[in-house]
C-alpha cells in the first residue's frame, strides 16, 4: 500500500509537470515534421513559375512548351527521360512535384540582346516574372545556357530546365546526324538501382538513406529521454534529501519502498509518454500513409514500436537507478553534476557507436557491445532497426539487461538507504562502496 502511495505520488508529480506535457506534445510534432516535411515542402510554397525565354536557337522553345502543357509537367518529362539518355540526372525524382513551370517566349526580332536582358532583369526585380532563360543560337556547339532569376538556389527548377533542354538538344543533334534517337536511347538506357531490405518475413523496398536517418533519429529520442528522466530523478532525490522530507518519509515507511516506488512511478510516467508517442505514430502511419515516404512507412512498423518501448524501459531502469544513486549520495546540485557526468558519458558512448552500428550492424564490435547491459538499450535497438539480429540474440540481451537491472536495483537500494541520510561533505567513491556493505 505504501509502495503504491509512493508510486502514485511520483507518477503524478511528473505527469503534471509542464515540461512533461510540452515534450509529450512537441516530440510527435517534431516527429511528424521530420516525416512529412520533405514531401510537404516539395508540394507547397512553390506554385507556378513564369519563365521568360529568349530562344535564339529557334527549336528549343517549342519542346519546352510541351512540357508546360501537362499538369504534372516535370514528372512526365522525367518519366520519359528515364528511358532517355540523361543518366546523371534521372534520380532526381521530385522535380515535377515542385513548381509548375510556365514558359513565355520573347520576340527577339528587332531588339538587341542587351535590351532584352535589361528588360528581363527589370521584370524579375519587379517580380513580374520568376526567371529569364537565354538560349544562345550556338547552344548545340557550346552547350551553354544562361538563366537569370531572383532565386538561383531552386535546385528543382534549375535541374529540370537543364535536363529538359539537354534532352531536346541531344535529340536535335541526333536527328540532324540522321541517327534514330531511339537506338541511342536503347543503348544508353539507365540502370535502375533499387535497394530492397531483407526482413525476417518478406522483403520491402526501402531507401537506405531514410533508414539510416530514422534509426539515428530514434536513437536521439532514446538518448534524450533517458538523459532527461535521469536528470529529473536525480533532482527529485536531491530535493527530498536537502529539504529533509526524506526523514518524514522514512518515519512512515522504509527506504526500499521509497526507492523502488520512486523508480517505478517515474518509469510509469515515462512509459505513458512513450505510449502516447507510439499511438500517435501508429495513427499517423495508418491515416496519412499516402503522404509518407515509403521508406519511413516500412521503417515504422508495429514491431519496431514495441521494441522501442521494451528497450526504452530497460534503458530507463538502468539509468534511473544510476541517477537516483547520485541524487542520494551528493549534497548539492554542483556535486550532482560532477557525479552525473560519467553516467552521461555512458549514454553518449552508444550514441556515437550507434552511427557505426547503422553502417555495419553485424560487425563483431557492434554485436559484442550490444550485449553490454548499459549499451543494450541503444545499440541492440539500433541493430534491430538496421539489420535484425537473430531473435535469440535479442531475447538474451533483454534477459541479460533484466539481470543487470535487478543487480543494480539491489545495489542502488543499499547505497540510497545510507546516502540519503548522509549530510555534509561530498562522499568519495570508496565511501559509497562502503555503504553497500552496511548492514
Amino acid at each position, binding site marked *: *500500500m*505504501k509502495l503504491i*502511495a*509512493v508510486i*502514485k*505520488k511520483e507518477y*503524478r*508529480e511528473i505527469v503534471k*509537470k509542464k515540461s512533461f506535457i510540452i515534450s509529450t506534445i512537441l516530440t510527435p510534432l517534431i516527429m511528424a515534421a521530420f516525416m512529412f516535411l520533405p514531401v510537404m515542402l516539395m508540394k507547397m510554397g512553390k506554385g507556378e513559375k513564369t519563365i521568360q525565354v529568349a530562344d535564339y536557337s529557334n527549336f528549343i522553345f517549342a519542346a519546352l512548351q510541351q512540357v508546360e502543357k501537362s499538369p504534372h509537367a516535370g514528372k512526365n518529362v522525367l518519366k520519359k527521360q528515364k528511358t532517355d539518355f540523361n543518366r546523371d540526372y534521372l534520380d532526381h525524382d521530385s522535380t515535377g512535384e515542385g513548381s509548375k513551370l510556365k514558359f513565355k517566349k520573347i520576340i527577339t526580332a528587332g531588339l538587341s540582346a542587351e535590351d532584352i536582358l535589361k528588360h528581363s532583369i527589370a521584370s524579375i526585380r519587379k517580380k513580374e516574372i520568376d526567371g529569364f532563360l537565354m538560349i544562345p543560337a550556338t547552344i548545340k556547339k557550346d552547350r551553354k545556357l544562361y538563366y537569370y532569376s531572383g532565386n538561383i538556389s531552386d535546385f528543382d527548377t534549375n535541374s529540370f530546365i537543364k535536363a529538359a533542354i539537354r534532352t531536346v538538344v541531344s535529340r536535335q543533334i541526333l536527328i540532324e546526324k540522321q541517327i534514330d534517337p531511339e537506338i541511342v536511347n536503347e543503348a544508353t538506357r539507365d540502370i535502375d538501382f533499387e535497394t530492397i531490405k531483407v526482413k525476417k518475413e518478406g522483403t520491402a523496398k526501402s531507401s537506405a538513406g531514410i533508414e539510416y536517418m530514422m534509426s539515428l533519429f530514434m536513437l536521439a529520442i532514446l538518448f534524450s529521454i533517458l538523459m532527461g528522466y535521469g536528470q529529473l530523478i536525480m533532482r527529485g532525490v536531491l*530535493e527530498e534529501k*536537502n*529539504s*529533509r*522530507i526524506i*526523514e*518524514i*518519509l*522514512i*518515519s*512512515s*515507511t*522504509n527506504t526500499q519502498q521509497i526507492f523502488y516506488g520512486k523508480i517505478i512511478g517515474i518509469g510509469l510516467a515515462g512509459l505513458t509518454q512513450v505510449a502516447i508517442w507510439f499511438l500517435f505514430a501508429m495513427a499517423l502511419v495508418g491515416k496519412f500513409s499516402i503522404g509518407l515516404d515509403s521508406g519511413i512507412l516500412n521503417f515504422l512498423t508495429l514491431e519496431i514500436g514495441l521494441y522501442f518501448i521494451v528497450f526504452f524501459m530497460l534503458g530507463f531502469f538502468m539509468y534511473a537507478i544510476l541517477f537516483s544513486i547520485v541524487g542520494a549520495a551528493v549534497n548539492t546540485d554542483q556535486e550532482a553534476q560532477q557525479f552525473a557526468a560519467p553516467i552521461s558519458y555512458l549514454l553518449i558512448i552508444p550514441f556515437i557507436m550507434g552511427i557505426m552500428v547503422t553502417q555495419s550492424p553485424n560487425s563483431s564490435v557492434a554485436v559484442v557491445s550490444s550485449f553490454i547491459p548499459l549499451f543494450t538499450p541503444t545499440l541492440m535497438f539500433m541493430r534491430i532497426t538496421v539489420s535484425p539480429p537473430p531473435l535469440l540474440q535479442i531475447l538474451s540481451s533483454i534477459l541479460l539487461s533484466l539481470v543487470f537491472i535487478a543487480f543494480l536495483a539491489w545495489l542502488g537500494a543499499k547505497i540510497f538507504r545510507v546516502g540519503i*541520510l548522509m549530510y555534509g561533505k561530498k562522499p568519495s567513491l570508496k565511501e559509497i562502496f562502503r555503504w553497500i556493505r552496511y548492514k
Partner: protein
Amino acid sequence: MNQQALALQNLVKDFDGKRAVDRISFTARKGEILGLLGPNGAGKTTTIRMIMNIIAPDQGTIEILGRPFSNKMKDNIGYLPEERGLYRKMKVMDVLIFLGELKGLAAETIRERGRRLLKQFALDPYEHKKIEELSKGMAQKLQIIATILHQPELLILDEPFSGLDPLNIELVTAILLEKKKEGVSIILSTHLMEYAEKIVDAVVMISQGHKVLDGKLTEIKAQYGNKFIRIEYEGDSAFIAGLDYVRGYKDYGRAMEIELNDLADKNRLLKELSSRISLNAFQLTEPSLQHIFIRKVNEGAPA
C-alpha cells in the same frame, strides 16, 4: 500495562570520533509531555533521529510503547523533523494525501481530517495552493498537521516552535495540550525553554551530549525552591554582584532574576534595592528552566 511511551537506555552515538550523544537514558510516561531541552548542538536532534531509527545508535537500546522499534509502529508515531521542507511544487492537499497514505490512511479520511485541521490552523484558504506559495510559518503549520493527521499515539516533535510567530506558538501549544488531553504522549525537543515550561510535564536536559537533569517539572522546581525573586527596575544595578547573600542573578536590563542563598534575606534585599534603584516590581517566583539549566551546566555535573 506498560506505562512508558519511550525508554532510552545508555544511548551512545559517535560521529567521526566525536561523541555526539553520551550514555543518555530517560523514560517518558504515557499521556505526558516530555521536554527534551538543551541549547543548539547539545545532541537533541541526534537523540531523536536515533529514536526514529533514522540513524543507528552505537550503543544502547530504545523502546517505544514498550517494544523495540519496528516498521509496524511507524503508523503509530507522528514525527516532525528539525529541518523542514516540503515538495515545493505540490499542492497543500496533495501533500497531506501523500504523507497520510504513507501512514496507511485512506485518501477520503485524509481529505476529511485534513480539511478540519487546515481550518483549525487557519490554512483552509490554501487547500489548493502550491507549497511554494505558502509563507514559512504556514508551511511549518502544514507540517504539524501532517504530523498529527494519522492520530498517532506518540508524537515526536523536534523544535516545533522555531520559525513561528507568538500567535502561532500559542496555536501549536493549544493543539499539543488538546492532543495530550486525548491521551497522546508527546516528546518535544526545543531550545526555547520559556515556551516549553508552560506545557511540559517532565523535563530531560542535555548539554554537550550528556544528560544534566531529568525529572518532573514540579519536582525540579520544588527542588530549587522559591528562592528566586524577579524584579523590574530602573537605574544602575551593578552593586548586586557585591551582595554576599545573593547566590546568582540574571540581568535583563530592566528586569532581573535574583537567586538568594536563603529566602529569609528577601526583606534585606528589598531594602537594599529600594534605596539604590527605582523598583517597579518585586516578586517571589519559581526558578525558570533556563535558570536551572544554566546552573546545572555551570556545576558541570552530569546528573
